[in-house]
């Protein structure tokens, strides 16, 4: 099994995602430069965080036109596993692979802090090994993580069980006071209709080793790897 970590100009969590997959989870992983055009031979794709193209026009707006994104779209259409973390999530919504948009945090400032997340569904390859309603701790680090969508889209996301994570307090209430960025209905992560494309603002790559304080992120990556192994059998 082999994973690709995409590298756009300005990606800065590419090394972090690579490190977790290759050295912590222990699966074969390669960096893939954004000018590449093929994902042949890869079983999963990670679009890492960072500031692709400086986030200068809109976050993710320029990266979605990179040559590799055509391959990512085809890969996703065929049911391939794609995770976008933070800037990766922003790229996925700009590319139309996930619905909605990510706008400026309501406090207008960049926020780097641990947040609590409630697992809303285990019906995804990424959360199959969590418990529904379980509270995780993960770091966020973004200025544009405020998830927004029109009412129909929001309705559809809920109807189809596509909301994967919500910001919550320590006891699991998705309270407004626990919402760091103003995201609609505290949404922190969503999955595509086909359940194979995950976008999330929190960083599982930053909490995948005990020495960093939490291993909740590691469970997400392991869940993905295990689901892929099973589906290959």
């Amino acid at each position: 099994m082999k994973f690709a970590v995409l590298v756009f100009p300005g990606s800065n969590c590419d090394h972090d995602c690579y490190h977790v997959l290759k050295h912590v989870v222990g699966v074969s992983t390669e960096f893939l430069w954004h000018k590449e055009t093929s994902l042949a031979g890869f079983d999963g794709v990670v679009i890492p965080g960072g500031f692709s193209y400086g986030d200068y026009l809109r976050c993710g707006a320029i990266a979605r036109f990179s040559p590799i994104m055509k391959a990512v779209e085809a890969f996703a259409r065929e049911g391939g596993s794609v995770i976008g973390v933070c800037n990766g999530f922003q790229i996925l919504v700009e590319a139309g692979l996930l619905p909605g948009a990510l706008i400026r945090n309501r406090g207008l400032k960049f926020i780097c802090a641990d947040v609590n997340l409630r697992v809303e569904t285990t019906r995804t390859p990424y959360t199959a090994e969590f418990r529904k309603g379980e509270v995780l701790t993960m770091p966020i680090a973004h200025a544009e993580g405020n998830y927004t969508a029109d009412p129909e889209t929001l309705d559809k996301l809920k109807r189809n069980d596509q909301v994967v994570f919500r910001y919550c307090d320590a006891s699991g209430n998705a309270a407004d006071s626990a919402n760091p960025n103003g995201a609609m209905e505290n949404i922190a992560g969503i999955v595509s209709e086909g359940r194979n494309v995950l976008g999330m603002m929190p960083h599982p790559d930053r909490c995948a080793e005990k020495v960093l304080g939490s291993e909740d992120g590691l469970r997400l990556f392991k869940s993905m790897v295990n689901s892929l192994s099973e589906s290959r059998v």
Partner: protein
Amino acid sequence: MAFDAAVEMTEEIAARHGLSAEEYARIVRHLGRAPNITELGIFSVMWSEHCSYKSSRVHLRRFPTTGPRVIQGPGENAGAVDVGGGLAAVFKMESHNHPSFIEPYQGAATGVGGILRDVFTMGARPIASLDSLRFGPLTDPRHRTLLEGVVAGISGYGNCVGVPTVGGELSCHPSYAGNILVNVFTLGIAKADRLFRGTATGVGNPVIYVGSRTGRDGIHGATMASAEFDDESDRKRPTVQVGDPFTEKLLLEACLELMSNDMIVGIQDMGAAGLTSSSCEMAGRAGTGIELWLDKVPRREPGMTPYELMLSESQERMLIVAKAGRETEVMEIFEKWDLPVAVIGRVTGSGTLRVMDGGRLAAEIPVQALTDDAPVYNRPIARPTDQDERNRLDPSALPALAEPEDYGRVLRTLLAVPGIAHKGWVVRQYDHMVRTNTVVRPGSDAAVVRIKGTAKGLALSVDCNSRYCFLDPRRGGALAVAEAARNLSCSGATPLAVTDCLNFGSPERPETMWQFSEAVDGISEACAALGTPVVSGNVSFYNETNGAGIYPTPMIAMVGLLEDVEKRAEQGFSKEGEAILLLGETPGRLGGSEYLASIHGLEKGSPPSLDLDLEKRVQAVCREAIRAGLVSAAHDTSDGGLAVALAESCLSGPKPIGARVDLQNPGGSRADEVLFGEAASRIILSVPEGKIAEMEAIAREHAVPFFRIGTVGGEKLEISVGGRGLVSEDVAGLDDAWRNALARQLGVA
């Protein structure tokens, strides 16, 4: 070929470039003729205080700069020390004070950009930054705006490049009302045998320009009555440089890719004085010459003159000397990263900097005249006449604080002082976790980053108490070094080496030079005693407005090594029932204390005394105890004395926790002196009951006194002195006073 004769050179034009009549005469002697305007511009930037260190050089020579671990001392883009396993820690600190005062966001952002380039120029990947900030009082709306802007600039730049800002410090004082300080530090990791230096060796080797195109940024040349320097061209020259962190990130990755191959002989950041300083410093170090072809320089704007091209401070640019024949490979790497790249010259054996603008010779100057032969001044020194008065303090004249509840109020007041208050509002805006190495996040005595692929970690701290330095610059300088080392020891790390940023007023003022010289001596003594050589640094003079200079602020950043990153400590108490031990017995004193300044409005007396031998032993005990697994929390006692240190430990853990403490007072000091008096060489530890005996053995071995002063637990911080209860505060209230103070003072709570 003719020299540009459009501008007739006069001493007055030289004076507008900041060159004295004597310096101008010296230029004429070096050249054997009058310089043209481009040459004058080149001399003026190379002989500026910033590039030449002309007022500080004679003093900086007194720093200890060598040691068994030092791989690269001062004089290069950054210093480097051996951390074992074939790796080097590469680090430096720099100031960006003046630009940040003019435009806080861009000033701070480009400061971060500059220090990152200094580090990755050496072949090191930057893994952590710190920043040390000084503002005027936050009651002044201008300083609230400056603080917000500086923090946003550091955040905007550092976050985008993806180098975590893992800590630093911040404080406010009226002496910074006209001159804020923005000092930024970056640490990188490199293979010890793969360090790159700014050197232009090998006659015939190509000189390659990479990075952003050159614009008219930051050219400070005086307005001149000439065709070349009319009002129009002055208007076109923005004095503020805009940072482009995205290009910096590309430049970083491209340079590291370049340096993993064997294509280049030298590389240097085009920082202050851009093309000029990078080219002649590289030639100067190699003893060679350099020829530049300005028509090849990538430009952002049409019609730029040689003067502008040589002096531009456009950001995110590098100068590389490649091995002859490898040009194409070098260019391919930068083209991959979509960065402008061009061969703009070659190394010569002439010993001169020769600047060609098409077929025209624009400048020709002996390199040595710009570098080694730049003026060096031993400026006059005079101890301030009111120095004795500053040191005079009569505690008996202070109003006594008798009522126990008053001590609680004093404690809450001190916890809200910006220098002591929780910095959450600031560090939340910094990505302090990217690169997933941050093991101890901002908010403890030292930040700790692990070194991936090893068991090791590096601890970082930056310190300076400028009030101490104002009262006694020599002891203040030594105390800054001691505190930085103590902070590292409190994390369990062995202090390795220092980089500094010496911020002072005008060197033309003998009193300022006295402070500078004294501070250098103090730093040198402490660095020698603690075995932490100075490996890089920066001097920032002229932090003075309308005759009012800042307090002397020699900022000390120190890097320490943890052989096993798992064996570390943080400052927060977390374990109910553990014993609180005080390591070291130096009694606190009121002189120069935060308490005296904040509560009594007095900045007088002498700063705490410092016994470097004791300091060393106290730190050794702390480190050994941490490595032996005896310590749950360790915290240096500094600003605000024991009471503030205890409160900080109660509030910094995973959640606030109380403590019950009884302080002895054998000398019969005033209660406020026991609670809030400051002293060096003291560390608070939280140790499980069952491990006190082991702790005692380690302390005895080093002949360090220690005392059990209390117990962790409960919902209150209760402190008595000699059995008399003086402080009894709910930790929740203290936590609010401390945690929300900064946001409240900024009006954003």
